[in-house]
């Protein structure tokens, strides 16, 4: 395959209004091929509007959008065959009376070179449910079926809109492993979520969106200058909790070690969590 466009997604000054409400007010995003990119933000921040413009569901009011080298607003079936979409709301599928295998095979029939239906069912962990009817599945299993339908066309780019909302922790871990596998095979993934641990576990890069604007972009570790922030060193001193803010935690710990002549009682070193940085980024604007 010839890569004419390095970026899988390139968005410049994207704008969208609904009446008086500015849903997206000048968003810039660039997602490289093979990258897992998470769009983080509170409800109503413009996440879904942005993603649905990229998916071709909505028309923009302004700005430029290129997804796999094409403008989604004018892209046709051949372009749709190269992307996979997992929408925000879990649906009951085509009909509650169809089996998992039937519906996955059916969706495969839309594509020029689909993946094998049973392989995809296995990938999302539904092999034992392949013959079950959709109404027999649990909520988490239906969500995994949604993902199966999104990837059966063997897409180069997958959109996942809040894929794990309502999952229990175990199901979420299993889902993360699935995303890791897809990413490992070279698929570009755009994920929206409001779970910070999810973004941290999955994403190569994260963008925080609030009030229709990107507040910060970076790797989960360095987002908002998180890596350069002051660390907090705390320890136990004579039954009392002591702490100090420092940009040189290693030096502080060495000094403490020298003072206590070995183990420092109750020692912890923490940096601001992604959640701290995130709340600061979205909170400063509200």
């Amino acid at each position: 395959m010839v890569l004419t466009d390095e970026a899988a997604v390139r968005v410049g000054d994207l704008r969208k209004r609904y009446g008086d409400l500015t849903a997206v007010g000048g968003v810039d995003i660039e997602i490289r091929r093979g990258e897992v990119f998470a769009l983080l933000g509170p409800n109503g921040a413009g996440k879904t509007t942005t993603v649905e413009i990229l998916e071709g569901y909505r028309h923009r009011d302004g700005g430029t959008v290129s997804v796999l080298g094409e403008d989604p607003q004018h892209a046709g079936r051949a372009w749709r065959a190269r992307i996979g979409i997992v929408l925000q709301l879990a649906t009951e599928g085509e009909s509650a009376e169809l089996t998992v295998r039937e519906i996955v095979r059916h969706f495969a029939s839309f594509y020029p070179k689909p993946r094998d239906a049973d392989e995809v069912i296995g990938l999302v962990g539904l092999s034992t449910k392949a013959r079950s009817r959709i109404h027999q599945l649990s909520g988490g299993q239906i969500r995994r079926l949604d993902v199966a339908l999104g990837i059966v066309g063997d897409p180069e780019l997958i959109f996942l809109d809040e894929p794990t909302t309502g999952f229990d922790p175990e199901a979420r871990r299993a889902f993360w492993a699935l995303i890791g596998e897809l990413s490992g095979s070279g698929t570009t993934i755009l994920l929206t979520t409001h779970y910070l641990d999810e973004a941290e576990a999955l994403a190569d890069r994260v963008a925080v969106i609030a009030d229709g604007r990107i507040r910060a972009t970076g790797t989960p570790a360095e987002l908002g200058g998180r890596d350069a922030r002051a660390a907090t060193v705390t320890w136990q001193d004579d039954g009392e909790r002591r702490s100090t803010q420092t940009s040189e935690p290693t030096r502080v710990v060495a000094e403490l070690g020298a003072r206590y002549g070995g183990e420092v009682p109750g020692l912890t070193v923490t940096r601001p969590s992604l959640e701290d940085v995130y709340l600061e980024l979205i909170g400063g604007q509200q």
Partner: protein
Amino acid sequence: MTVSAPAKSAARSTKQAPLPSALRVGMSRTGIELKGFFREKQAVAFVLTLPAIMLVLLGSIFRNETAGHDVSVGALFAAGLIGGGVMSTSYQNLGMSIAIERDRGMLKRLRGTPMPGAAYFIGKTCLVLISTIAETVILIVVGMLVDHLQLPHSAERWWTFIWVFILGTITCTLLGIAASSVPRSARSAMAVITLPFVVLQFISGVYVPFTFVPPWLRDVASFFPLKWICQGLRSVFLPAQAASLEPAGSWELGRVALVLTAWAVAGLVLCLTTFRWQRRRDG
């Protein structure tokens, strides 16, 4: 036509595999629509047998009535109920099912795939045709057993039956697709789509013989397709002299064709201009 799946490895090795044709995806849609429909056993039983049950009931209640000119009441109701049945499977069930699929986001998901829009309508149309034929056959068999309904006894009558049936089904299918965009949610679909259909059945000669309908209501019914479908079907199942019972004194088959075609064109225009793959609030 290569319906069977091509060898995977061969398809994958080509750089640009061709997209499957709308017809082929349409056949795939048809299969999934039929499975989805016929596995909902209670719903199927309701849709397919309701007209036959109505025929038995109405035929029993009005057993001693005659419509005049030796016209059997059973044949009169059978003709009307076949017409009502056509509109029920095409207009009503189709309109409801599309409204529900839109509300649940199923249409939106399909729109996000390379499925051609035409394939969706091929699937729906085939489902409507097959379910309408099944329901009509059941109705005719029950009518023959219970109400001495007679099959059309000339080639000319069979021909009329076929074109009225097909034209009526096409017209009501297009109107069903168009009507599906009117309700705002699946919950309101029942009222918005069903109410006009129920009213039409009472004034178009389905539940009540058309001669019993007051003239002003007949005039109202004349603006809508169901009256003309039923009239065309009466010409198929009633004796020739019954034509004199019609308000116009004849079957007016030319006008039947004209009115149904006009509604089909109007329905097609409405479909092309108003069909939505997403809920209203989804923009």
